[in-house]
């Protein structure tokens, strides 16, 4: 379990995070939602070890995360950042292999190869392996990055939990792949004993897939909890400046969002 305890972070004069707290459990999908500029990416960077000068604590099974050495940490944590920019031509196969870099020195062993192959098949990108990454479409690039990050997050010792962080992973995908990805993420999280935490902007998908929703606004945690409890709170609508309704159909809840500009 990861416990985020009252973390605050300022960059320059700007206070980005203010007393953020949350508990993230193994085998759970934690989704951070919030308006633009709420500090979502900054929170992920703090959990992932990019931002380290916050006050408060982030504890992973009672150990401060930043006490874990980076080379160890990259074997128990995988973080897919936003907007990966690559300058030189590079084969898709070689991009995905970097996901296993923390696990070997010079040559990947057969387990690494199997993991990479499994990730490739999971995202159906076998036909892209020999292609130049720079010539792929936005959605294809994203699926290649999924295969890379899932190879890194792949857990060979199910007794130990691992951490998977994803910053806006589905923003370049069409609706079919968005659903498909979130379904795969959920299954992968449970199978590999992961603590998954991600930022997405699609509120109804966040509601559908989250084990826990974290609503962030102006650096504060406004709401945390089960999706149903979060969206029923009146702070949910006011944070996003929307009016939402829960609709129950065939025993399933849907989050509907009304166009509040027309009121």
């Amino acid at each position: 379990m990861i416990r985020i305890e009252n973390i605050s972070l300022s960059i320059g004069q700007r206070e980005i995070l203010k007393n953020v707290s949350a508990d993230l459990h193994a085998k759970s999908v934690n989704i951070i939602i919030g308006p633009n500029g709420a500090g979502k990416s900054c929170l992920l960077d703090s959990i992932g070890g990019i931002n380290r000068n916050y006050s408060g604590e982030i504890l992973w099974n009672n150990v401060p995360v930043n006490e874990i050495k980076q080379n160890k940490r990259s074997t128990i944590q995988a973080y897919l950042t936003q907007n990966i920019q690559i300058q030189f031509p590079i084969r898709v196969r070689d991009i995905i292999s970097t996901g296993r870099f923390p696990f070997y020195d010079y040559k990947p062993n057969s387990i690494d190869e199997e993991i990479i192959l499994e990730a490739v098949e999971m995202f159906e990108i076998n036909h892209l392996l020999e292609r130049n990454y720079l010539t792929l479409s936005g959605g294809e690039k994203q699926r290649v990055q999924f295969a890379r990050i899932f190879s890194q997050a792949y857990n060979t010792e199910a007794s130990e939990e691992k951490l998977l962080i994803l910053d806006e992973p589905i923003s370049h995908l069409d609706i079919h792949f968005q659903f498909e990805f979130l379904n795969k993420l959920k299954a992968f999280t449970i199978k590999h004993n992961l603590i998954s935490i991600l930022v997405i902007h699609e509120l109804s998908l966040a509601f559908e897939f989250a084990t826990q929703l974290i609503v962030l606004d102006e650096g504060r945690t406004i709401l945390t909890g089960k999706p149903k409890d979060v969206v029923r709170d009146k702070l949910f609508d006011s944070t996003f400046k929307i009016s939402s309704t829960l609709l129950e159909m065939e025993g399933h809840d849907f989050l509907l969002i009304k166009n509040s500009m027309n009121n």
Partner: protein
Amino acid sequence: MKKNSLIILFFLASLLAIFLSCVVGAVHLSLAEIFNSISKTLFSGNELNLHENIFINIRFPRALLSFVVGASLAIGGVLMQGLFRNPLIEPGLIGTSSGAALGASFYFLSSNILAAVFPYWTLPICAFIGSLLATLSTTGINSSNEKSKSSTTQLLLTGIAVNAICMSLVGILSFFARDPQARSITFWGLGSLASANWKIVTTCTLTLVIGCFMAIKNAKSIDALQLGEKEAFLLGIRIKKLRISIIVTNVILIGIATSFVGVISFLGLIIPHILRGLGILQTKQLVLAAALLGGTVLCLSDIVSRIIIAPTEIPIGIITALLGAPIFIYLIRTKNEFLA
């Protein structure tokens, strides 16, 4: 074509280029003369005739030096382009080459005094000190500032500024130099392999082997770095350590080679691009292939520089740029999945 067969092809081409460089020139040497001189030197110790002497003491070391220097420049290009994640980088860009040019210019202006200080290899020592000082200034200036310390882009910009300072100082020195000295400064800036001898070949081969080893050791980290610095950090790469290691390797390769033969431009820039166009994309393979192709190209360029208006030699830097640039323009215009 498979990557491994390409590397074998480059290896064969490099042997051929070295062989051609040995036989072609103002005096044509036969195979028999080459064999005789090798067997005499290695085994019998009999006295060499003129042609055999030309081979063993002039042509052969020169051919090897051209190969070794070309290999060093090309590996430097692979490393620095990889570090800065920028296709426009020449390996000497952060002051390594221009510093050497500045050191060499000092030598040409005050050779008598400096020769008293370093009686042996005066010119290369001056050039290398210049190269080292300029590179150290770049990294020193960059890391003296909290904001730029962790930024590779700022390091590059600092390097370009140091480069400009060194080149303008070279300009001032050649402005005040007398004519023959000014000519020496100019020609040194265009490179020459005429000074080749076995001691220089041995030194440069040693630095090439060390540089190659360090490059291959860092190859995986450089591959990871191509995803971005943040992503490489998340993969457990220690960026600062990697940056220092690459810059040190680059000074060993480029600084020392340049100190002996002068500034040879363009080669370190284009060889990595040509190889990427051929589908060699992983750093480890790029390093090996760049060594072979860079060496071959410089060896062939040296042959051209010697025979094009024989017996006069054209500075080799002119050949690499004058022949290399049109070929490069042609290549980047071809349709190719891997050429950026």
